[in-house]
């Protein structure tokens, strides 16, 4: 197992390097001028100086390596320093990945936006799992019952209808027509007492539920088929034959075995919390990571876009690894050579 993890880790490194190169090269070689949005009255020589100050004067490979150094060495060091209050080396002189639009370090911007994304999108993922698993279990146990039929149809609708339509529909119904819930997520809102807690819950309901139902639609189908794969196996019959209660058969034997692929799928889906939230955050005006990316893209803020995109890539590669390892731990039949 340890050897497998190490091999997979070693394998993840070239993947990440390749992705970082793609992301960097794509943004760097694109026909696009970072000074394009500045006023036209700026004379060309000043423009050239601005480009120089943004670090664009150097050849491609130098900039790529410097970016790598900043991303993999400097910024992690900064995070460590902030977390433990220690100083490693010459921290004030260290080069940082800075946003072109705000001139502040990209990492600070990301740290600022992280809690909103985690709250809204992370919560919706958890809620989605909590909805999907019971539905999947019942659908499989009572296969072809009306519950299963309705569930199949609803989940088909659930993952066919995009969140940018369900979200708008929810706003239309609950904010515009019924006026129950606010349509915009207010991040400055602080929970101090019961009333403000209620307010926080009210503004969380729509974004969380819209995304949760979308996630639940896919996951419940997967849970159902995982349960069905196990329900007809011999060990289930044996368990029933030895006199186990139906509850024990279902929850101890079948459920635990069916959860193996489901848990892996859940792990694989975690990166989408961050990147897939782009649309939901845009609908409900949550100022999280997704919105930061959209702003950065519209403002041609290359360092910020590079860092965010690469961060998403790291999450995907990382959780792919976690899923593989989890699969090996949960399922003793899988032996990695």
């Amino acid at each position: 197992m340890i050897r497998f993890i190490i091999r997979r880790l070693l394998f993840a490194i070239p993947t990440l390097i390749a992705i970082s190169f793609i992301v960097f090269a794509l943004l760097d070689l694109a026909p696009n001028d970072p000074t394009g949005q500045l006023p036209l009255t700026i004379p060309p020589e000043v423009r050239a100086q601005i480009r120089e100050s943004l670090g664009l004067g150097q050849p491609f490979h130098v900039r790529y390596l410097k970016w790598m150094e900043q991303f993999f060495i400097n910024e992690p060091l900064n995070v460590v320093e902030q977390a433990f209050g220690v100083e490693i080396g010459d921290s004030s002189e260290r080069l940082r990945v800075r946003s072109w639009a705000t001139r502040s370090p990209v990492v600070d911007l990301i740290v600022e936006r992280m809690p909103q994304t985690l709250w809204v999108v992370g919560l919706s993922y958890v809620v989605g799992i909590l909805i999907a698993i019971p539905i999947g279990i019942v659908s499989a146990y009572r296969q072809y019952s009306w519950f299963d039929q309705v569930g199949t149809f609803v989940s088909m609708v659930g993952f066919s209808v995009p969140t940018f339509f369900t979200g708008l529909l929810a706003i239309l119904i609950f904010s515009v027509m019924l006026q129950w819930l606010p349509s915009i997520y207010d991040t400055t809102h602080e929970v101090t007492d019961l009333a403000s807690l209620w307010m926080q819950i009210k503004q969380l309901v729509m974004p969380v539920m819209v995304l949760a139902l979308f996630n639940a639609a896919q996951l419940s189908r997967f849970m159902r088929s995982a349960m069905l794969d196990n329900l007809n196996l011999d060990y289930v019959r044996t368990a029933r034959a030895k006199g186990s209660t139906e509850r024990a058969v279902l929850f101890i034997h079948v459920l635990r075995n069916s959860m193996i692929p489901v848990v892996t799928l859940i792990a694989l889906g975690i990166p989408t919390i961050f990147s897939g939230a782009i649309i939901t955050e845009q609908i409900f005006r949550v100022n999280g990571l997704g919105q930061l990316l959209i702003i950065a893209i519209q403002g041609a803020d290359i360092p910020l876009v590079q860092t965010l995109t690469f961060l998403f890539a790291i999450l995907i590669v990382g959780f792919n690894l976690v899923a593989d390892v989890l699969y090996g731990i949960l399922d003793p039949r899988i032996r990695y050579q």
Partner: protein
Amino acid sequence: MTTTPVSPPAGNGLREAHVHRSQWTDVWLAFRNHTGAVAGMVVFSIVALAVLAGPWLHDVDPQYLDIRVKNQGPSLAHPMGTDNLGRDMFAQVLAGGRISLAVGVTAMLLSLVVGTVVGVLAGYYHRLDGPLMRTTDLFLALPLLPLLLVIIMLFRDTLRTAFGPETGIFLLIVFVIGITSWMQTARIVRGDVLAIKEREFVTAAHSTGTRERRIITRHVLPNVLSPILVSATLGIANAIITESALSFLGLGFPPDFPTWGRLLFDGVNFMTITPARVIWPGLAISLTVLSVNYIGDGLRDALDPRLRGA
């Protein structure tokens, strides 16, 4: 084929068994029994027909501005109302649907071709397997939506000047969606090719001196057609959703050349005045994707001989 002179009466299973039926007749019979798939087929046909033939029946220029009738509800002249500039919504939804469907189908074809070529080459030629599958894994690890947004932001203006505003953005969007959605097809096709390559008829073809290219086109490809067909339907649904998402984020088609996603994006700010501007395009996307997904579902069941036997 089914055009036998003696067509067996329905329900007579014994005689039916003797009539020669091709694989595709079986598939069609199984597909026909899948209620969801048939319903999906009907809905998708209606949407496609409306979008293709609609502009002749409802011949209002979708870009015609009539500011005096702005923000109207549904009426006989404007079945879906008008927008804030007095443009007819129904005509816009029909015109947008043409582009949305065209993007969906073209992007799907591109991703299918790339996926099939990669899958067949990786499955058939052992020395290409490693590099091609590593590339596939690499593409699977890319954060796709952010990258799509970035590519469109960066290359939009260049392509627009090169091919004109409409063709430029169409080519760009079709290309980026196609080039980022072929991985699943490639994986499935590779798996099937690996299995088929070892079968006797391929060995037989080898022993009779058939050239590699002919083995692939004649013996391998027809046998991996089923997974390709299923991923084709899922590919259309995926491409339509992706295009709408891009347009919804303001980085897809321009407002004077709207797709369903763009109409939705433009309608958001007027949601309180004319909710129809959000509902109709959204409904169109949802219905199309839902019906295509059901077709795919039915096709998968119909093409699986283990499920078809029943």
